[in-house]
């Protein structure tokens, strides 16, 4: 038994304060304490991506982040993806049938959002590389990749992505997404090739 810690954070744009044990993962606190069960546990050790959330805008596997690390940071979960209606990625997943059981879907959507934030016009190979940290056992990825590329195209057409500046920064490796990045990611941060 250990002393509990108070953590102040922002989840899906709303300030949130919770109490947790220092050894609890962010995933467990999201799911079991805060009732945000949209984020899934597939492996608990960083190998499947089902628990992917954005931490200060960067995709991380929340099973590898301690809840206390959320102190003062901003978290976006699958529940925060839809703003006014569904996010174009969510819409594309529905239209392309990019999900079967749906267990991997929240992780893919969050991961794919990070991809499109960084690369508004990914190539198929870029999308496959970026999403290689998310396992799906049902679909064979075909429809997922198509949905992501289609969403990117639609967002471009709508001008709803338009975060070109962010994209440039990402290209420059500023998000630390390149595996050879010199700034070593802290525990739990997803290392994704840019």
């Amino acid at each position: 038994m250990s002393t509990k810690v108070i953590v102040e954070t922002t989840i899906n744009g709303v300030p949130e304060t919770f109490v947790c044990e220092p050894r609890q993962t962010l995933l467990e606190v999201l799911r079991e304490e805060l009732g945000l069960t949209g984020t899934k546990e597939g492996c608990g050790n960083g190998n499947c991506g089902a628990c992917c959330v954005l931490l200060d805008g960067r995709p991380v596997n929340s099973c590898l982040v301690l809840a206390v690390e959320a102190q003062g940071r901003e978290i976006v979960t699958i529940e925060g993806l839809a703003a006014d209606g569904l996010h174009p990625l969510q819409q594309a997943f529905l239209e392309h049938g990019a999900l079967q059981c749906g267990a991997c879907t929240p992780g893919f959507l969050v991961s794919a959002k990070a991809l499109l934030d960084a690369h508004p016009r990914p190539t198929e190979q870029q999308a496959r590389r970026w999403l290689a940290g998310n396992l799906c056992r049902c679909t064979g990825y075909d429809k997922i990749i198509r949905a992501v590329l289609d969403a990117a195209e639609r967002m471009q057409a709508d001008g709803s992505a338009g975060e070109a500046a962010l994209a440039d920064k990402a290209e420059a490796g500023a998000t630390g997404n390149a595996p050879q990045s010199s700034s070593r990611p802290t525990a739990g941060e997803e290392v994704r090739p840019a």
Partner: protein
Amino acid sequence: MKVTEKNGHEYRVIGTRPIRHDGVDKVTGRAQFGADVRLPGMLYGQVVRSPYPHARIKSIDTRRAQEHPGVRAIITAADMPALDTDAVAELGEGAIELKYASQLIMARDKVVYQGQPVAAVAATTRQAARDAARLIEVEYEPLPVVEDALAAMDPGAPLIHADLYTVTPGGGKAEQPSNVAKHIQYERGDLEAGFAEADVVIEREFRTAMVHQGYIEPQNATASWEADGRLTVWTSTQGAFSAREQLAQLLQIPAGRIRVIPMEVGGGFGGKIQVYLEPIAALLSRKAGRPVKMWMSRAEVFTGTGPGSPTYIRCKLGAKRSGALVAAQLYMVYDAGAFPGAPVGAGAVTALSPYRVPNFRIDGYDVVTNKPRVQSYRAPGAPQAAFAVETVLDEIAESLGMDPVELRLKNASAEGDRLVYGTPFNRIGFREVLEAVRDHPHYNAPLPERRGPYAFGRGVAAGFWFGGSLTSTVQLTFNPDGTVNLITGSVDLSGSRASLAMIVAEELGLEPHEVKPIVADTDTVGYTDVTGGSRTTYATGTACWRACQDAIAQLKVRAAQLLEADPDAVTFGGGEFWLWEEPQYRISLKEVVANLQKTGGPIVAKGIVNKLKMAPAFGAHIVDVGVDLETGKVDIVRYTAVQDVGKAIHPTAVEGQLQGGAAQGIGWALFEGYVFDGGVMRNPNFLDYRLPTALDLPMIDTVLVEVPASDGPYGVRGVGETPIVPPIAAVANAIARATGVRIRELPMSPERVWRALGGADQPASDDQAGETG
């Protein structure tokens, strides 16, 4: 791309691609999967598992754990009814003897695989439960481990079960106990004469690894045992009724006291039929007087649930110069893991039934070892068998200088040809599938030129699955706004809600979104078998169709009242009732539904399916691989899956089944496999047991061939199992065409390919060969 046999029907809804009904919930994180359940006062459960693959349990001391803060209950096998009967638990897809099923839940006296539960604890927090589990002291006396099935068959091998006697082909029992649970045999014609007739005879040995279904959502269960003896269980299961039946038998309580609420399921593929945590959560809840939730870690899923059977198969085929198969002999050893029940029967039947072979003999063995007890894995038993047969066929084609598709076409079974056990096939589309392969642009495209160390090859292979029926119940009720509730007992693993709703919409003249599919619990809907064996769209779909006919008959009476006519004078079509003789008098189904209260009150329509004819689905896959001859790494560069689907209700969903099955088969072929060391699994995580990622696969093209099934509406066939059958052999054949080297052991990892190419002098050591690169 679609190849449709003209059958004179135009459908309004069938064959379209509406957004699935549960889609929005699943893309927004709202869908409630099993592990998402939260109840007031809920405790967390944790299982204590055996680190030994084979050991006697000398003692279990729970005292220290009992005193741990937060602990509310601890159970061992002593808390479970002892089941020494010979009764069998039918799982709807496979079966298991009850006494063995009971030991899968909790070991008694002896453990027979690593990961077998020996105790469980419930506490107020997950941390407390895990800490307490570590304080439970179990003393073991290790016993000799039998890891390999062939070694287990040796008469001198240590016995895993002292009371296991081989069931012989005639149904008798062997006199001495052994590790061979069952020997099955299928024969036809004169084997020796057949081989004597052959111009070419090829015999090869094949080995496949233990593989896991790899569903992303781990097993979970939440149970609440009420003070009055009622038990409610929330779980991710492929079949709520099967889970209820298993709970009733394992806990020895009446089924009527148990309510199983099926939650959304994060993948099953046959692995979520057997209960594991449900009875444990129930017993913990009874003891603690509070609800208990538990879920498995990924390592627990690997070692503590039921993977797909590892196999050893010897396959000998003989053919005439013309390509006609004349004889076949198969020796098939299927490893069941710790308790009998490997899918060798289905392996034997699917191995040879696709082809007309006048003379054959198949010997199949169900063998126990100290490994996890296998369960169904998508077309259980068939991919292993197809790996052997389809590879030897490819070699025969090569040695006859014949196109491999032509060879298959020459021998392909058609309607009237008999399965190996004697029953004739009804309508099947194997020839049509092979013709579609032969004529497909992919099959006729030139292969890429060799680039540096990179050589390319193309492989094809075929396979099928039976297309089961079993039992399904569907109920329809009607809402005042004209919408329909479709209440089914078939849990939705991959979007079957949409397909079922589309059938109802088609029949009642509604739009798909006007039908609300509801997956009901065991208290709410009639008995329905598991979602598995490719039966849901076929059997439950037929139940939907029947429920619609019932609804129309009932609504016709009400329509007649509203039209002030005799019911016999009323007919229905396109969502409207009208008078035969005076078609200007008509009323929409919606209007009839809106007026139900005025015309006699609500109606409930039902559709029940208990037995349909088999609706086999044949498939054949084309794959191009690139093999790096320096490293042995195999890349899938192009893939096309062709399958007879009868009628694609929701083509997107059907394509998804083909793509997903192909991907699983590719994983089985190239990457996946349990690595054992003395019965202990060395790679129980997704890093070392590698599923295919988005980076490992290309787009997977699909061709839906539509040859209507003999039974059921629209000619629909179940499609889910078949696509995992051809890929392993297709990939192996492609590697052979690329490199000239045949790999007959799975996985075809870079190391194994590299060694086969002569990359090292000594053969692969067992423990390294399974690892993936």
